[in-house]
């Protein structure tokens, strides 16, 4: 009898808890579903021609082209003040200048120097399978090919697994492990970063940090290991690394360190250069860089706010900053922002776990 009443009490407690959790989850969701609207963020780029940011704002079903100081442009004028971004339109209109800021430009150089880099917290924090394809960096062929094996890094060395047979290639594993050990690599690896895809023009291999946070570049050249130990400035401990394979071949990668600084790693010299950005952590802030030979527009956005920073492409110093325009909220939306909501899907890592917004 006593057991029965305890059980019933426990059952009622579980039911009450379940109901409370469901109400905290569904009631605010219904409110947001009924009141929230989609907000368009204006597309903004830095113009080296005008020396300020310029945006495309969607107003009353039409696009308006507005400078940071409020000046309005026509569509053709907007193309002209952003010649590196709209160069194809300028070519079509026969309006592309042959020099800009004293530098000769042509479609080929513009295309080579333009790049777009994007990183989002959901991608950075996502759990990935620790198996990586190592492409041939110097095959002599124009098109890259996917290898027939992938590698994993264990506490003892690097292991290559042949995908068809699902077996370890012991000879190749030994060759690469020895090459890494010769350069002082201390297994296991802390960070392994690379782009294991053929959708790129060339291959920069992988950036690895070993168990003592030393940085290495690993590539496969003509089937042989190429390992380069990279000296880092004092106090730099990489936290997130992104191998870049842009057309201009200037950089091996971008690195965000534990002090929220952002660095570029140059090709050839393996020198680090710091980019003058506000503190940036890829695990909670998304970054988009739209770069050209004169300047970069860096867009940093997190859940609270957004910021645009113009960077000089040569010196990597800050030119100008601007806060992202905040959308005007209705009264219902402002109330909705204040209602705590139990959520399960985190926008930061795509994982399911309960949290209060």
């Amino acid at each position, binding site marked *: 009898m006593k057991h029965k009443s305890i059980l019933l009490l426990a059952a009622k407690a*579980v039911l009450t808890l379940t109901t409370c959790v469901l109400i905290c989850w569904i009631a605010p969701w219904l409110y947001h579903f009924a009141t929230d609207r989609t907000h368009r963020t204006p597309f903004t780029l830095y113009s080296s021609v005008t020396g300020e940011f310029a945006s495309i704002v969607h107003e009353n079903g039409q696009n308006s082209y507005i400078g940071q100081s409020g000046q309005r442009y026509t569509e053709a004028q907007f193309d002209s003040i952003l010649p590196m971004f709209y160069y194809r339109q300028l070519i079509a209109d026969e309006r592309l200048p042959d020099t800009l800021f004293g530098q000769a430009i042509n479609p080929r150089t513009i295309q080579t120097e333009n790049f777009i880099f994007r990183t989002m917290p959901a991608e950075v924090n996502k759990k990935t399978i620790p198996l990586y394809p190592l492409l041939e960096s110097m095959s002599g062929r124009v098109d890259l090919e996917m290898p027939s094996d992938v590698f994993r890094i264990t506490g003892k060395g690097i292991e290559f697994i042949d995908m068809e047979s699902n077996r370890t290639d012991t000879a190749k594993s030994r060759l690469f492990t020895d090459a890494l050990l010769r350069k002082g690599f201390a297994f296991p690896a802390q960070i392994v970063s690379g782009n294991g895809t053929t959708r790129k023009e060339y291959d920069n291999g992988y950036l690895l940090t070993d168990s003592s946070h030393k940085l290495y570049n690993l590539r496969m050249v003509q089937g042989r290991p190429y390992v380069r130990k990279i000296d880092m400035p004092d106090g730099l401990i990489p936290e997130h690394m992104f191998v870049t394979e842009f057309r201009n071949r200037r950089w091996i990668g971008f690195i965000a360190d534990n002090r929220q600084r952002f660095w570029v790693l140059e090709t050839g010299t393996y020198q680090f250069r710091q980019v003058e950005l506000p503190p940036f952590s890829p695990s909670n802030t998304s970054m988009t860089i739209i770069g050209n030979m004169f300047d970069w527009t860096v867009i940093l956005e997190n859940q609270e706010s957004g910021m645009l920073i113009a960077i000089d492409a040569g010196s990597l110093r800050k030119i100008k900053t601007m806060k992202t325009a905040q959308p005007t909220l209705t009264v219902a939306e402002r109330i909705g922002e204040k209602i705590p909501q139990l959520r399960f899907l985190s926008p930061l890592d795509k994982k399911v776990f309960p949290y209060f917004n």
Partner: protein
Amino acid sequence: MNAFFYKEWLKNRWFYLLSAAFSLLLCLYVTLNLHRLCNLRGAAHFWEAALTKDAIFIQLLHYMPLLLGIAAALVQFIPEMLQKRIKLTLHLPCNYFYSIGSMLLFGLCMLCCIFLLNLSALGIALRSIFAPEIVSRILLTALPWYLSGLTAYVLCAWICLEPNWKRRVLNGIVSACVLRIFFMSDTPEAYNRFLPILAVYTLLICALPFISVERFKTGKD
């Protein structure tokens, strides 16, 4: 308890044998199909899909454990309610805590056995194609689906044993919302951190059917 288990086995053995055969055949179909495709296109293609496109290859099994859990509860408890056999069970000279508890435990044990068989078969078949890292990702992605099957069984038993129709509808709404939580993301391994909490919750809601039984016993029709 053994007598109750034996009674439930006699009543439901064909359902559980068929369920085990059906789910194993589905697992076999999924993995044999994958083997066939690997022979046609090469295993490397599927390794790449797993590594770069988050492919898990067993999407066909997504709702299978959930449906099995619901079906198991319906097959076990609906005849009890329709033929008023539950009244007889509750009048047996033993505490209903033991009688209904044994019935629920039997269903949960049988489902656990079927699900473990499924996961073991999948693990063995996939391991012959993929590295352990990929196999563990696929199985960890499938774990919340299987856990949803156990939860669905308990919640469905809670609904079936409830004597009042209005309450049944309310219980059904709560159950649907609870089960939705198990299917909130298609991202592989999205539930890794949440799984222990869901497992404990599944254990806790095993108490819910006793509310329905108590209401049945006190005649809240």
